[in-house]
C-alpha cells in the first residue's frame, strides 16, 4: 500500500484538540456530525473495555471446575452487564456513530438534517450508560437477570434490588436516542443527497444505515413500551408481567423478542455496509450486484419483523407456531446468503490487497458464515430444543456478533481511521491485532459449540468436573486472554497512530466514495466543492473520465 501513498503536506485543518480554543467545551457543546461521530467511537471504546473486562472475569471464574474466583451473585451481575453493555453501548452506538460520521460525507451533505437532535442522541447514550453502571454503586448491586430480563426474574419479589430499575431506565434513555438517530438518518438520507446522488447511487453503507434506521424507528418503540411497563410493574406495582397477579410472563417474552430479533439485524446490517465498502476497494472492483445487496437488505429488514418467537421454542407455544417461526427464520438465510455471494463474487478475479481492513473483512465473511450456519441449525425446532440456553447458543451469537459485527467494526476503523484523523494506522500492529484476534476469538468460542452440545448450560457460575469440561473451558479462557491481548494491541495502535501514524492524504486507499474527496480529517464544512456524481463511484469517474461507470449518465450540476 505504502508505495502508492502520495506525499502530502501536513493537514491544513488539524483535528479538534482539547488544548485549543474552548477545550472540552468545544466537544461537549458540539453539534458537528464528525465530532459527535468521534465521541460515539470514543465512548464505545470505553464501554468495550468495560464489557470485555466483565467477560474476562467470567472466563476466569469458568477456567476450572468448581472454582471460587467470584461469587454467584457477582457472576450473574457480570453476564447481565456484559450482554447489555456489548449490545446497547458498544455495537449499536459504534455503528450509529460511524454512520453519523460518514453518512453526510458519503452523500455529499454539510451535516445531518438535524444536528442538535444528533447531539441529543449521543448524550442520551452516554447518560443511559452512566445510569446503568451507577447501579453497581447501589447497595444491592447491578441487575442480575440476564440481558433479556425475563419476567418474573426481573420482577419483585425475585429482584428486590434496584438493578433492574436502573437497567430499564438506562435502556429507555438509550432507546429514545436510537429512535432519534434513526429519524435523523432517514431524513438526512432521503432529503440531503447532493445532486446526481440518486437512491440507486448512494454507497451501500448508506443503504444499510437507511434500512437499519427504519428498523430502529419501528422496533425500538416495542421495547420502549415494554420497558415502560416493566418500570410501572417495579415502581407502581402494576401487574403486566407478574403471573401471580394476573399478568403474563410470556407477554414480556413476546415483547422483548419482538424487539430483540430485529435488534440483531440492527447490529449486523451496518456491519454488512462496512464490509460492502471495504471489499470492493481492496479487490479493486466495483461491488458485484449492488441492487441485490441493497434489495436483500430490505428483505432481511422485513423478514426480521416476523421471526421473534424462534427465541421461544422451549416455551411451548404449540407446533403450528413453532413450525411457522422455524421456517420464517430459515428464510432469512436466503437474503443473507445472497450478500455473502455478492462479496465473494466481488473478490473473485479482483486484485486483492490484504491490508488490515481487508483482512478483517475477509475473516468477517468466514466467521459470520460459521455463525450463520449454526443459526440455521438452531432455527430448527428439534435442534433448538436440545441446545437452547446452552453454550452452543453462546458460541452461535458470539460468532455473529464478534465474528460478524466486531470484525466489521475493526475493518471499518482501520479503513476510515485515515479519514477520521489524517493518519494511517500501523499495518504491523494491525496484522498483530488481526492474527491475535483470529486465534483468540476462535479459541474462545469454537470449543463452546462442543460444550453446548455436551450439555453445559449458559449463565452458570461454575460446573462439576465432567469429562473434558474443565479442559475445554480452560482452552476457552486462554482464548479470551489472547482476545483481550489483541484488543490491547488495537488500542495501542489507535493511540500511537493518532499522533505518529503516517500521513494519509485525502484518499490513501484510492477509494471511490465521496468521503474520500474531503480533506483528512474533513474541514468543518466537509466539502469546498462536492465532486459531480454521475455514477456509484464518483471518484473513479473523476479520475477516469474516459471510462466512467455509467457512460450515458446525465450530468447534474
Amino acid at each position, binding site marked *: 500500500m505504502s508505495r502508492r501513498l502520495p506525499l502530502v503536506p501536513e493537514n491544513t485543518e488539524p483535528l479538534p484538540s482539547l488544548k485549543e480554543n474552548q477545550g472540552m467545551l468545544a466537544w461537549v457543546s458540539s453539534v458537528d456530525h464528525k465530532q459527535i461521530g468521534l465521541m460515539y467511537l470514543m465512548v464505545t471504546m470505553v464501554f468495550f473495555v468495560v464489557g470485555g473486562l466483565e467477560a474476562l472475569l467470567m472466563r476466569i471464574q469458568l477456567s476450572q471446575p468448581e472454582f471460587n474466583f467470584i461469587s454467584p451473585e457477582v457472576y450473574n451481575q457480570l453476564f447481565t452487564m456484559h450482554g447489555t453493555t456489548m449490545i446497547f453501548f458498544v455495537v449499536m452506538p459504534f455503528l450509529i456513530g460511524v454512520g453519523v460520521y460518514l453518512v453526510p460525507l458519503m452523500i455529499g451533505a454539510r451535516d445531518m438534517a438535524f444536528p442538535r437532535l444528533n447531539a441529543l442522541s449521543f448524550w442520551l447514550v452516554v447518560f443511559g450508560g452512566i445510569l446503568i453502571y451507577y447501579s453497581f454503586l447501589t447497595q444491592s448491586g447491578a441487575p442480575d437477570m440476564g440481558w433479556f430480563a425475563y419476567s418474573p426474574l426481573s420482577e419483585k419479589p425475585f429482584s428486590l434490588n434496584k438493578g433492574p430499575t436502573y437497567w430499564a431506565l438506562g435502556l429507555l434513555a438509550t432507546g429514545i436516542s436510537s429512535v432519534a438517530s434513526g429519524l435523523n438518518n432517514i431524513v438526512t438520507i*432521503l432529503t440531503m443527497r447532493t445532486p446526481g446522488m440518486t437512491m440507486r447511487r448512494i454507497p451501500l453503507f448508506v443503504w444499510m444505515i437507511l434500512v437499519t434506521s427504519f428498523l430502529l424507528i419501528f422496533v425500538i418503540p416495542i421495547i420502549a413500551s415494554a420497558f415502560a*411497563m416493566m418500570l410501572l410493574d417495579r415502581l407502581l406495582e402494576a401487574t403486566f408481567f407478574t403471573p401471580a397477579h394476573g399478568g403474563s410472563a410470556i407477554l414480556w417474552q413476546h415483547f422483548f423478542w419482538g424487539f430483540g430479533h430485529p435488534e440483531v439485524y440492527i447490529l449486523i446490517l451496518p456491519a454488512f455496509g462496512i464490509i460492502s465498502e471495504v471489499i470492493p476497494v481492496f479487490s479493486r472492483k466495483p461491488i458485484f450486484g449492488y441492487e441485490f445487496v441493497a434489495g436483500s437488505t430490505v428483505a432481511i429488514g422485513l423478514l426480521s419483523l416476523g421471526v421473534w418467537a424462534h427465541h421461544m421454542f422451549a416455551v411451548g407455544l404449540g407446533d403450528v407456531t413453532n413450525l411457522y417461526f422455524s421456517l420464517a427464520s430459515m428464510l432469512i438465510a436466503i437474503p443473507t446468503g445472497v450478500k455473502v455471494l455478492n462479496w465473494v463474487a466481488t473478490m473473485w478475479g479482483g486484485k486483492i490487497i490484504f491490508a488490515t481492513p481487508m483482512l478483517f473483512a475477509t475473516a468477517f465473511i468466514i466467521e459470520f458464515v460459521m455463525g450463520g450456519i449454526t443459526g440455521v441449525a438452531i432455527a430448527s425446532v428439534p435442534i433448538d430444543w436440545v441446545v437452547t440456553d446452552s453454550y452452543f447458543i453462546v458460541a452461535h451469537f458470539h460468532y455473529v456478533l464478534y465474528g460478524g459485527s466486531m470484525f466489521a467494526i475493526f475493518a471499518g476503523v482501520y479503513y476510515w481511521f485515515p479519514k477520521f484523523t489524517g493518519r494511517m494506522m500501523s499495518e504491523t500492529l494491525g496484522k498483530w491485532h488481526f492474527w491475535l484476534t483470529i486465534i483468540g476469538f476462535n479459541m474462545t468460542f469454537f470449543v463452546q459449540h462442543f460444550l453446548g452440545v455436551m450439555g453445559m448450560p449458559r449463565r452458570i457460575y461454575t460446573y462439576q468436573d465432567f469429562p473434558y469440561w474443565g479442559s475445554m473451558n480452560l482452552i476457552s479462557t486462554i482464548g479470551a486472554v489472547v482476545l483481550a491481548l489483541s484488543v490491547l494491541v488495537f488500542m495501542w495502535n489507535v493511540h500511537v497512530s493518532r499522533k505518529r501514524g503516517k500521513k494519509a492524504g485525502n484518499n490513501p486507499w484510492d477509494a471511490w466514495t465521496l468521503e474520500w474527496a474531503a480533506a483528512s480529517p474533513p474541514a468543518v464544512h466537509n466539502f469546498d466543492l462536492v465532486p459531480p456524481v454521475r455514477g456509484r463511484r464518483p471518484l473513479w469517474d473523476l479520475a477516469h473520465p474516459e471510462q466512467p461507470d455509467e457512460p450515458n449518465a446525465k450530468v447534474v450540476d
Partner: protein
Amino acid sequence: MADNKMLIKFFVASESIFFIMLILAYVNFKGTVVDGPTAESSLNPYVTGIFSLFLLASSFTIWLAGKSLRAKNHTMMKVWLLVTIVLGAIFIFGQGREWAGLIEQNITISRNVFGTTFFTLTGFHGFHVCVGLIMLSILLGLALFGDFKGPRSDGVEVISIYWHFVDGVWIVVYSVIYVWAFFL
C-alpha cells in the same frame, strides 16, 4: 433547510408502534380478569364520550388555525390556537375527573390487570396530550409576540400533525376500551 415535516411524520409512525404495543397489552388481558373491576363494571362511556368530542373538535380547530396561517390571518390563527388549547385542556380535565373517580373506588394501576392496562394506556395518551398542550402554548406565546405571520410555518404545521396523531390515537383507544366494552 431540514425537512421538519418528514421528520414528524416518521416520528408519528414510530410513536404509533409504541401505542400499538400498549393497546396489544390491553387487548391481551381483556377478559382475563377473574375478580375486581373491569371496563364494563367501572367506566362510563357517555361522560368520556362527551369529553372525547372536545378532543375531536380540537383537531378541527387546529386545522382552522393552519388555514388562517395560510391566509395570513394572524388574529384568527391566534384565536384558533387558543380554542385548540382550551378544548384539549377540557379533555384532560375530563380524564382527570375520570381517574379521580376510579381511584376513589380504589381502582388503581396495581389493583388488577384491568387497572394496569387501562391506566397505562390512557395515561400515556394523556401524557401525549399534555405535551401537545405545552407545545401549542409555546406556539401561541410566540404568535402573541408576533411570530407566524404566514403563509407558511413549519412549527405550526409540524405540531398540527402531531396533534392530529394524538387525536387519532384517542379514537382507537376509545374504540378499544369503551366501544368494545359497551357497544359491541
